């Protein structure tokens, strides 16, 4: 049972081996560390860049111009905000040149709360990112999706943004990645032994990863969401850290006879409207859940689209559960809990909405 971090690592290895991935770079991405979250350990092409986010995005764009596939990491999305102009540039390059140039490149960055990261290690980036045209944006919520979405990003001919929910980096899924050791404790330990850099610094210096042999191209098509919990009373659309909370909420509420459909959006842009739309037609009400701050939030876009196309199909107002509109996420438990959606918030929201259905 790989973690999300391991899944990313295996996907990048697969990319190096089969998709011509040439550069995986960013701050502390290469040896000795292999990424602050271990996601780039043991990769052939990983290297450490200067501490310069603007240079990192610029380098990625230039590499893409030269058709050199790369994954550029911004260590925390909290530090991506001085590069928005560069992200916009990447997003408008194909369009501005009337289709002459295009940029096969991937930017990867950890997002969100959940690790008590305080003001500058808890930011979300989905709202701003979805406002920037020309990118494809993904955000997995489990290892299998992390693996499959990364592969798709690596094959994509356009700029792709791979948002990794920090809180889930060491989370494990219940589905296997093809080729990984069995989903047992022993398998888990074996995988660790094979692809995790040893903690001991001396050993680490000569260490080489032993990649699972059966890895294959299980890419997940960009733009496809997934129903991860079926139900018919309310549709809940989420992604990233809040997704497992929504599933948990659905499970809990099922015990009280409440039937919740949970959609994992997986690709934020362009998103799977067909899937959402169909579910809304079934449940007649919808909640969008994410943890970015709630003003000018991507969930608000989805609500706009919902009322534009389904106003008369709704049995209750569409609802947003998102982060409070505060300048930061406070470090104290009490503050973080009050700032971003928690399981209880989501359960409450669902119950309230169902109670409103007419």
């Amino acid at each position, binding site marked *: 049972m790989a973690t999300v971090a391991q899944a990313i690592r295996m996907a990048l290895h697969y990319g190096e081996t089969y998709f011509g991935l*040439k*550069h995986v770079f960013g701050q502390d991405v290469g040896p000795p560390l292999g990424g602050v979250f271990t996601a780039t350990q043991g990769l052939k092409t990983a290297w450490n*860049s*200067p501490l*310069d986010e*603007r*240079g990192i*995005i*610029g*380098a*990625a*764009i*230039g*590499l*893409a*111009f*030269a*058709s*050199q596939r*790369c994954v550029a990491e911004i260590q925390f999305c909290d530090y991506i905000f001085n590069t928005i*102009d*560069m992200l916009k*540039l990447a997003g408008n*390059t*194909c*369009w*501005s*040149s*009337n*289709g*002459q*140039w*295009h940029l096969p490149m991937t930017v990867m960055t950890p997002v969100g709360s959940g690790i008590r990261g305080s003001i500058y290690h808890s930011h979300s980036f989905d709202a701003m990112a979805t406002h920037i*045209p*020309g990118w*494809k944006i993904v955000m997995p919520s489990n290892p299998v999706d992390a693996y499959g979405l990364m592969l798709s990003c690596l094959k994509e*001919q*356009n700029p792709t943004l791979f948002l990794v929910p920090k809180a889930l980096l060491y989370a494990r899924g219940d589905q296997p990645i093809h080729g990984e050791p069995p989903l047992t404790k022993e398998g888990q330990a074996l995988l660790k032994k094979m692809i995790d850099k040893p903690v001991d610094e001396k050993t680490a210096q000569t260490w080489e990863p032993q990649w699972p042999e059966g890895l294959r191209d299980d890419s997940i098509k960009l733009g496809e969401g997934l129903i991860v919990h079926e139900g018919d009373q309310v549709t809940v659309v989420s992604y990233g850290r809040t997704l497992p909370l929504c599933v948990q909420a659905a499970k809990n509420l099922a015990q009280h006879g409440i039937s919740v459909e949970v959609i994992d959006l997986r690709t934020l842009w*362009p*998103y799977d*409207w067909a899937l959402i739309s169909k579910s809304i037609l079934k449940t007649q009400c919808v909640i969008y859940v994410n943890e970015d701050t709630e003003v000018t939030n991507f969930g608000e876009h989805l609500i706009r689209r919902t009322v534009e196309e389904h106003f008369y199909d709704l049995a209750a107002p569409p609802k947003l559960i998102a982060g409070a509109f505060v300048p930061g996420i406070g470090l104290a438990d009490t503050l973080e809990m009050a700032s971003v959606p928690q399981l209880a918030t989501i359960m409450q929201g669902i119950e309230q909405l169902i109670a409103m259905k007419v």
Partner: protein
Amino acid sequence: MLIAETSLTIYHLMVEARVLEERLITMCKQHHGYFWIGGPGEEAFNVALGLQIKKGQGLDYDFLHFHYRSLAILLAMGMSPVGPIQQMKSTASDPFSGGRNFSSHYAIPEFNLVPITSPIETQYLTAIGTGIAQRDHPTDAITIVNGGDAGTAEGDFASCLIWSARPQQELPILIIVTNNGWGISTAAHTQHGEKHITNRGKAFGMQTALVDGNDVEASYAAIGKAMDYVRKERKPFLLEASVSRLYNHSSASGANFNADEEDPIVTFEKTLLERQLLTETDFRSIRTQYETQTRQIFEQVITESPPLGDTIYDYTYWQQTGKYW
């Protein structure tokens, strides 16, 4: 000293570029376009540069990250003069942006010319990437980036120096600054504490040179030397050229001729006269030849159509057309 043939080629290109820019300015003033920006005053340096670029597509050819005063470079490389006129007129046929972008915002994959964009100095960041690609590729091709003096105040210029000077990881980038002494209305001497911009390269142990960009011979030689170094040593070189800004910043500042600045064409004509390569009559007839050519293109282009409104979504993604969501 340049051989006669090269001198004549350079002169022709300089005049062609100037005449074309003047036509673009006129078009703009006649409302055949909304905005003009370009490179009159930089012809000497730019033609000398364009002629020495290793032209082609892919890693084995020079990669170009240019700003909006680069017309003469591209003409010297063999770009047709039709495109710039189409772009000024915002026709669908504009080969660079299909009527989407401002004048002088070229994009030519066949020349490895990545799209010229308006934000000052971001080209110094994207140059890093092609520089890395060419560092890792067995070739003598290099990355070339240019931009103005005021723009060096953006952190991006420093980023280019830093990334290209990493020990053992040096990048084969020819880093050019064309110093015209102005950023729109702001005089360089009010903003620059460094004596020469090249000093900032020296701080990184970088090879650098200063050149009079109004002097064709000096520019040609300095560029050749700098390029040679980068091609062979696979290390960066910072080249600062002093140039003129002959028609002010852009049409937003009137785009009128400024007689206070040295005109590199006039300067070069003196050399050509001295060397008895051309006469005053030749100068006039060469100019007329390009004016006629340019006018003919103009007359053709103004009959061409603008892009259709329903194409706005096209190429948001590669090969995609129409609204996609």
